[in-house]
């Protein structure tokens, strides 16, 4: 029965993940004319792409940290409200407006003659060059990913039994102690999921790197898109893709851990 239920899932896995993955791995050893080669890998290690990998990693790291810093207190705040589902929905709603459209709004907000500079001018604190800056990139990314972090984190925090927190308080723990010693350890699973769904896609962000940073930030995703669509060099595109997946595996190992044991202990 359990296996039967999982059959569609395994079909999905085989058709939509394994097959394209093998195709990609295969392509990474091909050059333009379809000959087998290791040149793509040689080129990957030749400088540009290593530099790009490092900077992608760095930006993804920053985006994840800031997203977590915003989302975690938010999840706590939502937990304290009386109608949690409604507040969650209200926070998720903006993600249903098309991303490109919101990005255009951000261009209008961050631009030289945009809203932020308008307010700054009104307050007499001079103009900002926000558009095309790293800061704008991180703000917009955090904006985009925040709901994706919030949901799993909230799910985990919401599961914590109120009695547990009350007990901790009764036993003399301060609010901060409850937060750090009880809530945080119990919500680790949710945070891990959140980190996965934010860090991994932010390695391959592409559209907003062009729109918001004017290509001053280039992620691995941008490079892959270029190789596939502009250069039509599927071999090189696949090679970068292979490295992207390797990096994802690294992230998975760090955030994987053995979760079941901990639950059993409780």
């Amino acid at each position: 029965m359990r296996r039967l239920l999982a059959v569609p899932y395994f079909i999905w896995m085989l058709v939509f993940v394994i097959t394209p993955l093998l195709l990609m791995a295969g392509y990474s050893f091909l050059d333009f004319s379809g000959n087998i080669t290791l040149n793509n890998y040689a080129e990957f290690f030749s400088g540009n792409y290593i530099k790009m990998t490092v900077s992608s990693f760095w930006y993804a790291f920053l985006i994840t940290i800031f997203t977590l810093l915003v989302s975690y207190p938010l999840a706590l705040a939502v937990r304290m409200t009386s109608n949690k589902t409604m507040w969650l929905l209200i926070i998720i709603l903006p993600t249903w407006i098309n991303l490109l459209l919101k990005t255009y709004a951000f261009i209008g907000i961050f631009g030289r003659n945009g809203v932020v500079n308008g307010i700054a001018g009104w307050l007499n604190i001079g103009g900002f060059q926000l558009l095309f800056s790293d800061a704008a990139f991180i703000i917009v990314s955090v904006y985009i990913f925040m709901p994706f972090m919030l949901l799993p984190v909230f799910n985990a925090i919401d599961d914590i039994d109120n009695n547990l927190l009350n007990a901790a308080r009764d036993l003399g723990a301060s609010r901060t102690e409850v937060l750090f010693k009880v809530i945080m350890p119990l919500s680790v699973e949710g945070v891990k999921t959140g980190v996965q769904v934010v860090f991994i896609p932010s390695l391959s962000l592409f559209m907003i790197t062009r729109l918001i940073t004017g290509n001053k930030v280039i992620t691995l995703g941008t490079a892959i898109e270029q190789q596939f669509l502009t250069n039509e060099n599927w071999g090189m595109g696949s090679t970068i893709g292979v490295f992207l997946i390797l990096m994802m595996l690294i992230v998975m190992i760090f955030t994987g851990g053995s979760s079941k044991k901990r639950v059993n202990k409780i």
Partner: protein
Amino acid sequence: MKTFISLIAVSLTAGIILLVTANLLEQSDNNDGNTLYVYNWGEYIDPGLLEKFYEETGIRVVYETFDSNEAMMVKVNQGGTPYDVIFPSEYTVEKMIKDQLIIPLDYSRLPNAKNIDNDISSRMPEEITAYSVPYFFGTVGILYNEEIVPELKFSTWNTLWDESLENEILMVDGAREVLGMSLNSMGESLNTTDDEKLQTAADKLIQLSPNIRGIVGDEIASMMTENEAQVAVVWSGMAQDIMRENDEMNYTVPKEGSNLWFDAMVIPKNSENTDGAYQFINFLLDSEIAAVNTEWVGYATPNTAALELMDEEVRKDTRFYPEDEQLESLEMYRDLGPEMISRYNELFLQFKMSLD
């Protein structure tokens, strides 16, 4: 439990009902089955003309759009949809001929092709005109804010390197355009395959990086309308769009030369309605129809007969309808083959990575 089942059931049923409704809506006026699949850039035809074409011929146009030549090629290569008329740019036409994706045109079935300006189409390689008819054309040039940079005249590409333009230039995200601009500024051809010259052009570009505000795509249009930067390297069509919105902006093509581009109409090999395709192309080549379309799209038309029907202001605008002398300095992009294109892109990537 109840929530789970109702969630799944409701959304499945609602989804299917919606899908059927949409289908019915679309088919309500499409019963005779004579359809034509047209694949074009977004916002690149007057939608009223599709209606008019239906009234005249009874052929219903199913209109799909793409946002880049390359993405379009991926789809056409796979042959999932049998498109009947596609509107690629000239260098993509060349590639499609090489890949044997399109058919040579039978000009006897396109009597209105006589309206096309020979002076311009004669600049297209013969093999391209054998397979395609130009739709709109233009150049690559400099869009600049007259009010802010009056002393800079941009008669040469080298003005872009002027120190006063620090953090003031937006550029289109295209390897051929940007490297071509640098090659032109050195007096070289923008189809250069000489590696040394390419490298010099790339090095010269890196000197330009302090002046670059950003390298963006189609968003340049809205950004320049907003005065986000004072100068931009753009296609003429885009410049026309911007200048209609922002009258501080002006456009010029430097004297060293630049690119001459075409978007053209082609018929793919797997078209299932070639008759309709010929009728559609011929329809768009009609002088009056082309004039209406040019009015709506706002790009420069190669259709001389249509141009004669337009305002003198439009016709005489040498910024967008260059005179012979300037036409001489313009060059079309040739398909340089995948290895060379890859080299261009690699150098372009280096340039992007030199921006901070």
